[in-house]
């Protein structure tokens, strides 16, 4: 087991190199950092000497060779902690990125805690009576859930709980934007929770839909298996058949899926964050993108990809831990 983890971690390093290099090239092409810098700092842009200086310190040489050299310049700065500063106002990137990361993880974990129990229960509920009304209802509900795009549910919820509610009852039922009321200072979990209700609902709709479908499919698979027939033929209680045999086995792919899903949180909540003005990774990305701010986007992408790679590893470990047929060494 330990050997597997070490080997996989060692493998993750070259993977990260390749992925970050690809991302580096893609971002340089997409944002055109030099032009963006010039746009953001028109006075500096008039001074060719200062511009040449900027190219040298940040490794923004043109051509493929320039990209490769530039990547290593960036990498050295990134690894040693001398991150490139934002193009606008030359601010350090990490403090804001850290806040955004924490906020997004908070929102994402809350959404996971809401959607996994609900989704799995619905899936189990449906799979126990396949073809019956409850199964059709859960299945239909799941497809409706898939079809409700987050930006639509977000603005409809905003309209209903914010604006219309205020029209009918005098004040909005739930806050519809931000993390705290404007001007709020300090940490207040209850208040924050209230601000997170609507974004969590929006994120959870599609999540619940997909967990319920996966759980249903996985459990149905197990329920139709030969070993479940064997378990029933033993004369043990139906409850024991379901818990010890069916659910135990059906959870294996679900746990893997959940691990991958959690790994995708950090970059996956862009839409709901944007609509609700929630100061997380999504809003950070959209702002940096609109400024063409390469020094902000690059660490953002590194965090996203590292999280995906890390949780991939965790998913594999969970799989091996739950299923004795999988051998890691």
């Amino acid at each position, binding site marked *: 087991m330990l050997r597997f983890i070490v080997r996989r971690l060692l493998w993750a390093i070259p993977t990260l190199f390749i992925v970050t290099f690809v991302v580096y090239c893609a971002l340089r092409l997409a944002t055109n950092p030099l032009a963006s810098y010039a746009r953001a700092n028109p006075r500096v842009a008039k001074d060719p000497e200062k511009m040449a200086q900027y190219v040298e310190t940040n490794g923004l040489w043109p051509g493929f060779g320039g990209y490769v050299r530039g990547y290593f310049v960036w990498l050295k700065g990134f690894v040693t902690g001398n991150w490139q500063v934002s193009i606008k106002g030359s601010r350090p990137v990490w403090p804001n990125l850290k806040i955004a990361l924490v906020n997004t993880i908070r929102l994402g974990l809350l959404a996971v805690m809401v959607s996994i129990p609900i989704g799995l229960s619905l899936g189990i509920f449906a799979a126990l009576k396949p073809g019956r009304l409850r199964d059709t209802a859960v299945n239909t509900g799941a497809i409706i859930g898939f079809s409700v795009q987050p930006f639509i549910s977000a603005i409809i919820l905003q309209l209903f709980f914010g604006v219309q509610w205020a029209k009918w009852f005098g004040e909005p039922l739930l806050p519809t934007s931000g993390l705290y009321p404007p001007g709020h200072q300090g940490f207040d979990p209850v208040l924050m929770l209230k601000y997170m209700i609507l974004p969590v609902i929006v994120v959870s709709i599609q999540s619940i839909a997909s967990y319920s479908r996966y759980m249903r499919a996985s459990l149905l698979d197990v329920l139709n*298996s*030969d*070993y479940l*027939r*064997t*378990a*029933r*033929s*033993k*004369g*043990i*209680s*139906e409850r024991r058949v379901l818990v*010890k*045999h069916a659910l*135990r*086995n059906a959870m*294996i792919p679900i746990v893997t899926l959940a691990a991958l899903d959690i790994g995708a949180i950090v970059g996956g909540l862009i839409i709901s964050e944007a609509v609700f003005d929630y100061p997380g990774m999504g809003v950070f990305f959209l702002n940096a993108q609109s400024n063409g701010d390469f020094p902000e986007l690059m660490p953002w992408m590194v965090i996203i990809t590292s999280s995906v790679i890390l949780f991939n590893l965790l998913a594999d470990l969970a799989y091996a831990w*739950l*299923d*004795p*047929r999988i051998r890691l060494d």
Partner: protein
Amino acid sequence: MSTESALSIRDLRVTFKTLLGNVQAVRGVSLDVQPGEVLGVVGESGSGKSVSFLAVMGLLGRNAVIEGSAKVGDTELVGANQRTLRKVRGNNVAMIFQDPLSALNPVHRVGAQVAEMILAHHHGMSKDDAAKRAVELLDIVGIPQPEQRARQYAHEFSGGMRQRVMIAMAIANDPKVLIADEPTTALDVTVQAQILEVIDRIRKEMGTAVVLITHDLGVVARMADRVQVMYAGRVVERADVHSLFHQSDHPYTRGLLASQPTLGRERLSPIPGAPPNMLQPPSGCAFRVRCAHAGPECAGAVPELIQVRRTETACVRAQELEALV
């Protein structure tokens, strides 16, 4: 006779409700198995031989409608509630299946799966005692180093060893009836013989009634005392094993025997055609569409089993055909 039977089935009918209509998988099967006896149940795929016994055990899906009667001792199983069925399953009647790899739970240790069977019917027993008993059982069915093996998983066993585990599990509560559904089909020929030996030994030592479901007439010849041949959800012939092999009167049984490879015979004669569509089984004798001896009378009533020479045969022309042989 039926009072002392270990398992007694009367006019069992199983119908599956499907998207395309009702599939009449079993259409009136009756049989008795005595303690210590091996009853062979033979037939092609889809003849309803497995389904009959899965129905008795209450292991069919929700879409199966089961009618008739099946008694283990005094307990009626058809239409019984789950509690009654649970008390019988694994206790009075145990079952082993065709593919032991998929029949064993891949994520539970083998010993624990055997122990679970014991604990299911011995409520006061401690887990440690059950685990010890499981190791004993693994030893009885001939698994070497049973203590180590009990801690392993099904995928770490060979096919034959897995089937031994299934047998160990099945005999854990000293059942009156052991239903073996194609127990050797998925195994190598040499391993097949060993597994059959284990089953036979258990029958002798414990006096278990064995139902051996198979399509392999060789297995039947070797193991069974009596044989029932099934076709299209009905029993078409019933006899002791010797009579069936030497003086069968049903054209289908004869066809089956003729399609078996034997040393010295140069040609196999397969039965022409395919088994019927059980959505709309043919009227009268279901075999008549494939039968070389079918006449107009075969389309009439469904033939019942009648004594012809040494076998009971469900063929209206059996008496006439006797002359032809």
